[in-house]
């Protein structure tokens, strides 16, 4: 059973009289453990697809199955639970809560899974250690560099040990060198068995992946395997 399966999936936005076909008739499957890069020009529907795969948005037509479950049939509570335990998100703009320390930001998903405090802190510390921020647990986001903030976000995404990591332009706000560090982190995670799907505009970043999906005007135009060069 594929981890992700889309069949004839479409997502339309209706703005006034116009209908924007952000995604149109997409069919694809992604197996567990893959490293997929989604590329395409701005407005081609990459983020829209990512949001649907991440169970944050619903399709207009077609079907989406995650681990064999038809997402359309699931309740909003069940979707929240899937986002909490099965999926980790990394965003271009980090999305850390500015009032909370790195540790408490990392803990957030565990609060919603009802993990006891002691256990939560232990796992959050471990996650921060894995991304190389052991000494920064008690720093606020404003006291961290962009690269460090994105690492906290990755630690937060991984703290529940999800099987799927979704990253929407994770290096978009970082310089080349820091971007490379973040990408090596993601590659490490992928090697550990986590499926990684990432959106990018940069060819060097896409090169980390082993499969490339190219979108244009809401349609999947090429789906190609890459020889992993690094």
């Amino acid at each position, binding site marked *: 059973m594929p981890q992700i399966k889309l069949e004839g999936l479409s997502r339309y936005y209706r703005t006034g009289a116009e209908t924007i076909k952000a995604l149109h008739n997409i069919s694809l499957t992604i197996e567990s453990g893959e490293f997929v890069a989604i590329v395409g020009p701005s407005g081609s529907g990459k983020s829209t697809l990512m*949001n649907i795969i*991440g169970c*944050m*948005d619903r399709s207009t037509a077609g079907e989406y199955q995650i681990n064999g479950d038809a997402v359309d049939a699931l309740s*909003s*509570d069940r979707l*929240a*639970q899937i*986002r*909490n*335990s099965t999926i980790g*998100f990394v*965003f271009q703009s980090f*999305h850390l*809560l500015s*009032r*909370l320390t790195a540790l408490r930001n990392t803990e*957030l*998903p565990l*609060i*919603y*899974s*009802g993990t006891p*405090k002691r256990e939560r802190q232990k796992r959050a510390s471990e996650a921060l250690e894995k991304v190389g921020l052991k000494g920064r647990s008690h720093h606020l986001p404003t006291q961290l560099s962009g690269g460090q903030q994105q690492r906290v976000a990755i630690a*937060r995404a991984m703290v*529940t040990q999800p099987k799927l990591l979704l990253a929407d332009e994770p290096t978009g706000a970082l310089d080349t060198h820091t971007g490379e560090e973040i990408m090596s982190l993601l590659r490490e995670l992928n090697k550990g068995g986590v499926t990684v799907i990432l959106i990018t505009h940069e060819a060097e970043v896409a090169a980390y992946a082993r499969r490339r999906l190219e979108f244009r005007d809401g349609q999947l135009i090429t789906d190609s395997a890459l020889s992993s060069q690094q």
Partner: protein
Amino acid sequence: MKSRDLIATAATALKANPLRSILTTLGIVIGCGSVIAMAAIGAGAEARITEMIDRMGSNLIMVLPGSGISRGASMGGESKQSLTQRDVDGIREEAQYVAQISGSISSSVQIIAAGKNWRTRTSGVEKGYLAINKWVIELGREISEEEYALGRKVVVLGASVSKNIFDDQDPIGSTVRINRIPFTVIGVLEAKGQGFGGRDLDDETFVPLKTMRQRLAGKKRGRSGHIQRMHIEASSAETLTETEREVEQILRRLHEIKEGDKDDFRIRNLAQMVTTRTDTIRTMTLLLASVAAISLLVGGIGIMNIMLVTVTERTREIGLRMALGAKRSQIRWQFLTESVILSLSGGTIGVGLGFGASYFLQGIDFIEIIHQPRAIGLAVLVSMGVGIVFGFYPAHRASLMTPVEALRSD
């Protein structure tokens, strides 16, 4: 999600905007403060009534002249002189339930003695009056039967009068001039303290009724045989109603009032009289109650307003929390917890201020304060309720957001 995490999350959010949080709770602070003060004043008034009745006797009945409405024109409280000595004697003879009765006439007088000058009130009374009204002799003796009968010029002083004229000296046997007529002081009464409205109950003097008529009441009033009021002690507190009915029947017969016509006198028992006197305090309590209600309403709306702002400001945070796995119900609880903490802390501050205000009000003469710890519970419950009621809508709105749209907003 555990309640401890909810509270910690809410506290962090509120601490981010301390001034705003405090200002928001102002209405709740005032509302809960009023609840506390109101309870203390209400309880004080109640205690005052009970104490008053105890001090004056719960089986005291007073008969006053009718309100004197003749042809629709009110002639004022006691202008109609419908009560006479004959009525007093009649009741004394016939009534079964009456233990003691005394008529009285009072008048404002000038007392001069020992080079001092004092304006007070003197009442001409009959035997039994002092006992009916729970007056106790502290120094000297009561007016004797002979002095009552012969209308002797003797006077019993209230504690304040004695204090003001004689200071700490023993006044027994001294001569005082009441409206220039010499009287011998034979007794001083034990102090009763303050009555309602801060009136000094001990600023009184008593002489035999007959003396009053002949010497002090003035010719017209003195000779006419009219009296101002009757003081009656019912044989027991339980038969108060029967006593009142009996007195009414006798007086109606003596006054030849026809069946269906109105009484030309008024019968009051002490409980009724004291209750009328507490009207001021009742008004005050009512005022505080409305202040409390309005403040709580305004405070609640303030909380709702600030929570709506908060939810809008933190849309992205809501989206993020949802992306990380927060259920709708958990988001709702988070914001509801915030509004309840907000209103509860307002309530707590209000309780403190309410007690403070009660202490301050204690300084005012006619207000008695009894602190009511039970009101704390009420204030806490009320403020919590306000937080829940007015926080629900903003919290519900937060929970209805969809994660993508919330995350995209800035």
